[in-house]
Structure formats: C-alpha cells, structure tokens
C-alpha cells in the first residue's frame, strides 16, 4: 500500500558524512583541473567533486554503473546537478585520479566546470513529447560531440550554457541561455473537425490563441483559423489534438543567443533570435551544429577573458555581432509580437 503525501526523501539521509560535518562551513573552492572541484571548509576538511556528463536519458544499467562507481570511490554518495551532470563526492583526495581513470575507461566524460561548455539542458523531443517541433536528445548529442573539446577543458572566454527546447513551451527554459536551440513550427495547424468535436472545450481552445486567430465554428462543433494571424506557437495543439501542427517538411530549429540567468556583472537577460530557422536534418542536424560552432568560435575569437556571450554581444553591439558572424539579418529577427517596442533602437548611435 502506498503512503500518501510523505514528500521527497530527506536530503539529510542522502548527504555524505563529510558534508554533514561541514554543512554551511565551506569557505572557498578551487578548480584543480577541469571537471574537479575542491571545496575547503573552515574545519580544514577538503571535499572533491568530480563532475561527469550524462545523456540525461539513461538506462538502469547506467544508474547502477554510477552506483558501483560511487560505492567504490566515495562510500556510495553522489549527486546530480541542475544541468544533468553527475557529481561524485570524494573526501579522499587520493581517490580522485583513480575515479577519473575508471570514468574515462567507461566512456564517461569529466568536465563542465569553469570556463567550459557544460551539459546542454534539454527537453524530451521525439522521445516522449506530444508537441515537439524537433528532437532534443539527437541534436544535443550531435552538438556535444561537435563541441566535445570544450566540455573537458576550460579554454572558453567564460562559461557557456546551452539550452535546447523542442517547442515553444520551452520546458528546457532555453530562453535565458548563452545559446539556445529552439524547435519551431512554421505552418498553420490543420484542423481536424472530428477530433475537436469529440472532446475539446471550444471556448478554452479559442481562448488559448494569443493572437485571436481561432474562431468558433458552431456548425462543425469545431473552429476555424485566420491564417494570417497565426504565428505557429502551438498553444492550441496543447489544448486540442485536433489542431495538428507538426509538419515534417516545415518544422525545424531557431537559434537564439545572449541569455543568462546569473546576476553576476550584468543583469539576467533573455536569449535573442539570430537565426529564425534551420531544417530538421537528422540524425546529426549539420546545419544546426555548424551554426552553433560558428557562433561559439566567433565568440572565442572576439570576447575578452571572462565575457559571457551576452556581455560580449552587448559590448560590441548586436549590429557588430551580425557583421562578425556573417549571419544574414532579416525582418524575421525584428520583433513584431506584443513586447516588441523596447527592442527598437531609439538612438542615433550605432556601429557598422
């Protein structure tokens, strides 16, 4: 029998003794090498965390494998990060290198610390989502393979946080990432009257449209769409399976850059669209990986040390970003939705 409302397991039972002893007493940390954090406590204790990339979608074999490693090297304790990395928590410095050797042997990459590319936060995509405009795991794998050298090193100008959302619901919260890959639809939903009549609340469906493009069609117990008003957000499809929006020929990805969530130096910022569409070209999405690599390399070449993508672009100006990257600018990149005004330039100062 189940116990209702017992809540999550108590974290106090999941933390290793060294953390129990030094909880709240850490005074500083260092990064002795990529993928390894050394935290030092006021008691003099030292904790080593070894950070490991994971594909997020993992089998039980993978989890048990992590458990075996945790048992062998850190008394069975580990944690996961907000970016789906695994962290092994070691109180014994002499076990760090043997653990890294064991991880390397199993093909598990160590890295994601400091001025590196950490794991890509992403959504389910074609694996398990019912509204995706692209896959998630496949593009993430392709991009991480392509930029692999930046995960296990710390040679970037600053940290690089990449997010991928397979539709505009953005479960991956790609909207505040240094670089975001976002699945986009480009065609008006195809209305399936039969499906809508079967089980859709028409007023809710009509209300779900942010641009008022959906009108009731009482005769068919369905709806109609004013095509010109639709901007393909897919919100109606979430409300009703009768608003079929997935389109294998026209769905794809947009690229956004310059977002961040940290308050360090400049305030948190939204990612901004710089490429409105790239095709879905599985299994390796070469157009997407090429665009991502190009933007990252231009950032590396031009940013000052410590400058995240947003800081670099705001310093040089977005107009210079387009010059340096050679990305074509078009009216698609000028906002025409409800909060557009603040993005228009109201000054005679700009660069070429």
């Amino acid at each position, binding site marked *: 029998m189940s116990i209702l409302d*017992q809540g*999550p*397991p108590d974290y106090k039972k999941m933390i290793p003794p060294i953390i129990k002893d030094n909880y709240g007493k850490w005074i500083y940390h260092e990064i002795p090498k990529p993928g390894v954090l050394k935290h030092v406590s006021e008691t003099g204790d030292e904790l080593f965390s070894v950070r490991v990339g994971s594909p997020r979608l993992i089998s039980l074999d993978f989890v048990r494998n992590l458990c075996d490693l945790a048992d062998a090297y850190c008394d069975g304790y580990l944690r996961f990060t907000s970016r789906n990395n695994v962290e092994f928590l070691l109180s014994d410095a002499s076990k760090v290198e043997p653990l890294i050797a064991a991880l390397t042997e199993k093909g598990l990459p160590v890295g994601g610390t400091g001025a590196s590319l950490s794991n890509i936060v992403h959504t389910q995509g074609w694996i*398990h989502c019912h509204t995706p405009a692209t*896959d998630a795991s496949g593009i993430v794998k392709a991009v991480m393979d392509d930029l692999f050298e930046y995960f296990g090193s710390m040679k970037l100008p600053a940290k690089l946080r990449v997010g991928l959302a397979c539709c505009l619901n953005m479960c991956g919260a790609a909207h505040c990432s240094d670089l975001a890959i976002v699945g986009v639809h480009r065609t008006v939903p195809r209305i399936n009257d039969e499906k809508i009549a079967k089980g859709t609340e028409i007023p809710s469906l009509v209300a779900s449209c942010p641009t008022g493009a959906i009108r009731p069609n009482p005769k068919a117990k369905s709806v109609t769409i004013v095509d010109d008003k639709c901007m393909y957000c897919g919100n109606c499809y979430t409300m009703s399976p009768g608003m079929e929006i997935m389109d294998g020929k026209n*769905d794809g990805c947009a690229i956004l850059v310059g977002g961040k969530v*940290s*308050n*360090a130096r400049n305030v948190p910022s939204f990612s901004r669209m710089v490429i409105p569409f790239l095709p879905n070209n*599985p299994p390796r999405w070469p157009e997407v990986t090429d665009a991502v690599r190009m933007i990252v390399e231009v950032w590396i070449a031009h940013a000052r040390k410590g400058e995240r993508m947003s800081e670099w672009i705001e310093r040089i100006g977005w107009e210079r970003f387009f010059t340096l990257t050679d990305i074509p600018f078009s009216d698609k990149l000028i906002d025409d939705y409800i909060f557009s005004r603040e993005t228009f330039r109201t000054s005679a100062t700009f660069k070429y």
Partner: protein
Amino acid sequence: MTEKKTPQLDELEKGQWPSFVTEIKKAAATNAASEDLLHLLERSYEDRIGHWKHGGIVGVRGYGGGVIGRYTDLPEEYPNLAEFHTIRLAQPAGWFYDSKALRSICDIWEKHGSGLTNFHGSTGDIIMLGTTTDHIQPAFDEFSEAGFDLGGSGSDLRSPSCCVGPARCEYACYDTLEACHNITNEYQDEIHRPMWPYKFKIKFSGCANDCTASIARSDCSVIGTWRDTIQIDQDAVKQYAADGLDIQDRVCDKCPTRCLKFNSETKELTVIGEDCTRCMHCINYMPKAIRAGKVKGATILFGGKSTIVQSAFMSWVIVPFMKMESEDDFAEFKDLMGRVWEWWDENGKTRERIGETIYRLGMGKFLRECELPPVPQMVFRPRANPYVFWPQDEIIK
C-alpha cells in the same frame, strides 16, 4: 521486430559524448517497450515528426497529478508503446543520493517500467519514462514503500527544487536544501492535487549566481542575498595579487556599480557598501578574499515563466529581503505564498501563469490585494506615463 534496422540512431552511437541511443539499446535488451521506443524514434527520424499523442488521464489513487499519460499514435505498429506513461518522482533536495536509494529505484522500475529514466526532468523530478496503465499503481506503491513520493503535474505546485546550497557551496546565503525540503513538505496537498489556474513552480537559489535558473524557470524565485556589506579579507586580497590576479582589470573594472577600489600600492581592496548591488562577481573571482555580508536572507521574486503564451517573463522583485533562517522565517514565506496563491486563484484565468495574471491586471492591484508594500527595489525605473488608476478614497469629493 528484431530484424528492423535503426541506421539513423546507430549513427548517434558514434562520437565522444555519451549516447542516449546506447542507453535505449541497453534498456531494449530486456524490455519490449524500450525496444519499440528505439524503432519508433527511428521512425520519427524518418518522418521528422513526433509520434506521441495527447493522453487520457492516468494516475494513482488519492492524487490528481504526478503521472503523465502518453500513447503512441501508431499503436498497431508499436504495440508495446500503446501506453507509455511517465511517473514523476520528487527528488531529494539538492539532488543528493546514496547508492542504496538509487538501486531501490532501479529495482522497482525494472519490474514496472521501461528501464529508462531521466536524471532529472526540467523541473527537477526523477522521471520514470514509460510504463503501462496497469503498472502505475503497483509501481507507486513500491516507490512509496522505498521512501519516494510523486512530484507534480498539471495545474498544481510542481516539485520545488534548489541548488547545492550550504551542503557544498560557500556562496549560499540561506539553507536552500532545508528551505526546499521544509516548504515542499508543507505543500504536499498543493503538489498532489491540482486546484489552480495553471502550474506553479518554486526554485531556491542560494545566491545571485542563481544555479537553478530560478529567475527564468520558476513562478516564485527565492534568491539568496544579504543586506549589509561584503566582507573583505585584506591578507587574502594580497595573496591573490601576489598570485598574479589582475584585481583592477578582472574584478574592479567588471564591477557593475564600480563600488570596488583597489589600491595598487598597498594591495588593499575597499568597497563603497551603499553602491554595491550584490551581484556576486567579485565573490566569484576572489572567494578566498571576499564573502557575503553577515545579514543574510533572500530576495523573493514572482512571475518567471517561459515563452508560451505571452512571451517569456523573468521573475519580478516583490520582497527585496526576507530572512530565511528559521522555522519562523519559513512561516513568513508560507504566509506570503498563501496570500499570493489565493489572489491568483481568484483572479487567474485557466492556463494563465501568475506572471501573466499580474501583468494583465497590473502590479499595483496585485501588491494592494496581497498586502505587499511597494518599494523602489521592485522597478528598474518608474513609469513614464501619467496613467494612474487613482483609488477613489484619494480623490477629493
């Protein structure tokens, strides 16, 4: 089924980053649903569309959320995916585990599910990916026995999450794990029984570096901060200088308010306390020399959400500083949440996140009705137009 090939997915087993395809194949070795999943995904790679459809409602006895129904639109061809539901398990605060707990999850999921998981989902839950309707209740019974409970789904409070906090971070301005655990336990009813206009997320970050991305990803962001002035250890500053850190260039010149002065002769660093906005930059660069102030707590912000529908919002400052140390402080936070949820429940439209409700009805109305004092810390700058909705009692009659 075994003769079917997956050439596109096989390609994604190459390369140095760990492959999710390899993971699916490992699960497929002993699980028919995972094997079908492999082939359905290959089909998606061919068709370039997803093959999942909207589900009927599935769940466990006593709860309204925590399980997400999922069905393929091609059940004849992939019969083992006719039902492939997700169970969300609430994660321990800070995503800390011992191997015993993880192995217990594995043993249960081997019996009742596909053998595939996400550690973790975007909101923070452990995602148990893929089971049939018949297995949901037995799986939950066993997870429950092993000490795990369900997370949220639908129009309810989603599982709150937090950063690593004081467990392993010198920057933490409050105990994010205890706050998250305490507050999550308080709201089990709100998590398990959807009753609101839409979903609601809370994230706890110990400092302004905001490692949980709370400002972008949660309706209520609790971000650690301090009220007084940073503490500087001059000996440690001198050591950084001696070790070659260009303090003027890397720290002072990058300070957004230019409140740090480095004396290159005495090698001393001073701060104009009232100019500091507590952004964390100097602390990030010189953790041995600079620490947060002593009067610590959190800034409470509301309204963060992603793009759908009215554009993405980042959370707005509503309470600039709240202590987050004791049970009493948590009680003050819960009192605030109670007022805010009641207001949203009363005013929100269906599928309207609280940020959208506040934006539609006006911040002024929200603040007045939730009894929150307006303060200049809430805005970057005041309004530029004179269109004030004057309360009638301020008008001379």
